[in-house]
């Protein structure tokens, strides 16, 4: 197993404010890394930095030739945006064959191709998330970056998105880096956790990291994770 991503001493300063400071971690192949932390902790900024979308200091080294699939946080799309799901896939530029598209749609749980004719603005939060996952899968990624997969999604869809992610992870053999609020989910699916609050508060396997001392340092107050043993 090789290392897909190495991050060393990453720092991001935006508008003279330190958003992320001195963060180091790495991601191995076939691993699920969860990034947790309070609002404003710099989680999304960390993502944007490792994707190379914003300037940063320190080192971000991707394995050569790695393909990244990115699933953004909830998109705000006008209800009346004249864009069908099929056209949304076409926006990728490089042609996605109909067969491939059908395959990815079935992977994320859409039966048939009816969804392709719908407008993206009328999709439910859960449907949109699954479309975005399929969109990212079109890149045949080695690693999937997932920003708050379930914000704006109702609870039943939330559960199915995580089980979908887990299934994908097992079937398609790629690494996942995800930002999440749901500690239970992180505990269940992640192989490694990084707690972020500008700088790295804790880092390691969920069982070692998600302990009350770390969590209350991270989120403040009494937060604990109930372990189902």
């Amino acid at each position, binding site marked *: 197993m090789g290392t897909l991503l190495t991050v060393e001493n990453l720092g991001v300063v935006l*508008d003279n404010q330190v958003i992320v400071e001195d963060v180091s971690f790495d991601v191995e192949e076939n691993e699920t890394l969860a990034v947790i932390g309070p609002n404003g902790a710099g989680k999304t900024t960390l993502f*944007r930095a490792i*994707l*190379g*979308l914003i300037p940063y200091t320190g080192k971000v080294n991707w394995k050569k030739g790695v393909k*990244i*699939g*990115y699933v*953004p946080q909830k*998109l705000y*799309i006008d209800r*009346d*945006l*004249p*864009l*069908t799901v099929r*056209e949304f896939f*076409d*926006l*990728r*530029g490089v042609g996605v064959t109909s067969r491939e598209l059908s395959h990815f749609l079935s992977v994320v749980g859409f039966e048939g191709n009816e969804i392709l004719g719908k*407008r993206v603005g009328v999709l439910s939060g859960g449907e949109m998330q699954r479309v975005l996952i399929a*969109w990212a899968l079109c890149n045949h990624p080695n690693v999937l*970056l997932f920003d708050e997969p379930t914000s704006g999604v109702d609870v039943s869809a939330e559960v199915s998105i995580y089980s979908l992610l887990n299934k994908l992870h097992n079937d398609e053999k790629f690494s996942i880096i995800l930002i999440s609020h749901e500690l239970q989910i992180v505990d269940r699916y992640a192989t490694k956790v990084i707690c972020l609050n500008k700088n790295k508060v804790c880092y390691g396997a969920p069982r070692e990291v998600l302990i009350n001392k770390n969590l209350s340092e991270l989120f403040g107050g009494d937060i604990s994770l109930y372990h189902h043993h």
Partner: protein
Amino acid sequence: MDINTLILIFVGCFVGAAAGYLGSFMVLKRMSLVGDALSHVALPGMALAIMFHISPMIGAFAALLIAVIAVWYFESTSTIYPEALIGVFFTFSLAIGVLITPQPDLLEALFGNIQNISLLEGLLAIVLSLILIFVTRIISKKMVLGSISKELLESLGVTYKKINFVYLLLVGLVVALGVRFVGTMLMGALVIIPAASAKNVSKSMNAYFILSAIFGIFSALFGSLTGIYLGLSIGPCVVLVSVVIFVLTYLVKGSEARV
């Protein structure tokens, strides 16, 4: 109607198509008001061009180029879009433009005059419109994706800032082409209204683009004809026709929503 006028109406249709198509992205980016106000900047440029006896189209484009760079800069450096600042900047140029434009040319610069366009300018406008449409077509997917999510676009390895700059440059060009027809006050309307109308009735991006261009052509064509037959200024007639199209599409949208 003489052959020259006919040719110029024909030219207007090309400019209308290019303006409608380019404007469709402005509406998607929710920058309609900027698109509208941008055209006011052409005025001081045209005024200087008239003073120095060069083509007003070149003067307009030079002024728009500066404005486009300013819009691009603000859009890419601020997290909050500084609409107020752009409003101030654009009305400022309009005021300066009105003051320095020679009085006899003012009305024409503000509201356009199709009769004063030379055939050569007309021909140039057709060629440029076609080039504009062609280049826009090349970047259209990236622009649409960028209007939905810059991150998604950039995750494909495309730099939004670059694409957006090319796009804004194209908008500057199309406005410079159009100010001769409908004037600096109203050219923005020809960029925005056809696209806004098309958005009312389109279910897909393809339909949206095609309708934006078609509504642009309709506005230019029927607006010019109305203006010529009634002996009215053409610019306002073009805009009024586009507004009629907007109202009609809005009603269609409303009736669909009730079904």
